[in-house]
């Protein structure tokens, strides 16, 4: 392993850790979801970068003169592209679900900070226990 061949993995790991830290250390739910989307992009980046070949082109056939694809051309692997393409769209749909839950939490608790929500739950339980 050398820096020249693996440097992009370091950036991907750094991004991944930025996202992970936002998800576990921040109280704000919207910020947590932003962290999740950063994490997602870094994972996608990891997969897509594995499919790359030096000097390769996108996996769309380059046509030769006889109307058949020129198999001498080097192509990147299409498999990670397919998997990640759908993952992006699914990711935004599920993130919308998360944001919808955040909106409902705001409407019920009046806040989107994790610690305040826990505090209000605790107060409510105490009030119920006193009754």
């Amino acid at each position, binding site marked *: 392993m050398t820096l020249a061949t693996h440097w992009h993995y370091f950036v991907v790991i750094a991004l991944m850790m930025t996202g992970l830290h936002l998800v576990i250390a921040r109280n*704000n739910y919207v910020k947590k979801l932003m962290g999740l989307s950063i994490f997602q992009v870094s994972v996608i980046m990891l997969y897509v970068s594995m499919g790359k070949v030096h000097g390769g082109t996108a996996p769309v056939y380059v046509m030769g003169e006889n109307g058949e694809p020129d198999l001498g051309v080097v192509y990147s692997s299409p498999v990670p592209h397919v998997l990640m393409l759908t993952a992006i769209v699914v990711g935004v749909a599920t993130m919308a679900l998360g944001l919808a839950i955040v909106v409902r939490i705001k409407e019920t608790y009046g806040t989107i900070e994790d610690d305040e929500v826990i505090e209000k739950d605790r107060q409510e339980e105490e009030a119920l226990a006193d009754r």
Partner: protein
Amino acid sequence: MIELPLEAVLFVFLLIVGIVVGRLRNLFGAAMLTGIFSFLSAGLFTLMTAVDVAFTEAAVGAGISTVLFLATLALTDDTEKPSERSWLAIGVVTLTAIALFFGLFDMPGYGDPDAPIHGGVGKHYLEHSWAEIGLPNVVTSVLASYRGYDTFGELAVVFTAGIGVTLLLRSKSAQMGDDKAPIPFRSRAPYVREMPIVRAVAKVMLPFILLFALYVQAHGDFGPGGGFQAGVVFAAGFVLYGLVWGPRALQRVARERFLETGMAVGLLMYGGVGVAALFMGGTFLDYSAFTPEHPQHGQHWGIFLVELGVGLTVSAVMLVIYFVFTARPRSRAERNRQAGSIHPPRLTLPEVPELRASDDEGAP
């Protein structure tokens, strides 16, 4: 080799933007930066020759997810309260980073042609998909035909997420925010739809965005594109209309009931093509069964129909999500808070009246 320095610069920008998104307390600013983050990553995907992925990321990141973040912020808070520094979290993150770092020793180098990913099924697709499917874009062949089951499942997830958001946020009084009593123009900042430049530019761009979406849908077999990208671009065009002229105007153009039907019809179309293949004597989603004498034609038809279903469902789901977010009345949060209780009223069982002896007499 222009790629290497370009990649390095984009990666550095991406890292900086990612860290700034984390540090920024102003969530509106952070939401806008996530759009830039997506744009930069789309650039990087292009350099990694993943044009289809780049396309999707650019459309989703710039067109949909930023708008969704902004819509959420409009319904919640736009500033983040400071969180106290948690050494436990930093410890967990550091340990994970170290574990991943050691995992790197077994990874193949960037762009290594001998990496395991380039053998196996990926190699088969590149070498045989022209003979078996006959489409220039291998990504589309794999997406819609070889891995059709997988894509069907993903589309079902998108559909389910659309249903989930509707169930969570759909309010009975779907009153759009823009039919309040008009405020005199001089005493307030202008709405976006009153700015002539924005209106003019949006009006000029809109037909081209929609036309482009249709092109992407139809041309996905031959170049980067396909149902997922087209659906998102198509929805983004309508979202632009909604942003400029207000959600109420958008509702007149794209009726919600129509969109909700579209969500289901797209998914059913995908599944229907699969079932049709079953009836024609093939296996589920085996399009070659449509035209046994010339399997490639069947593949083309199957892929075209399936991609159409994907495009329909994706664009409908994205628009429905946008609708329910913008139609949610902002006042609801305040009303609930004034009502006093944090929790919605608990369910109490109705008291059952005790059976009297006279009731029993009528029973056999």
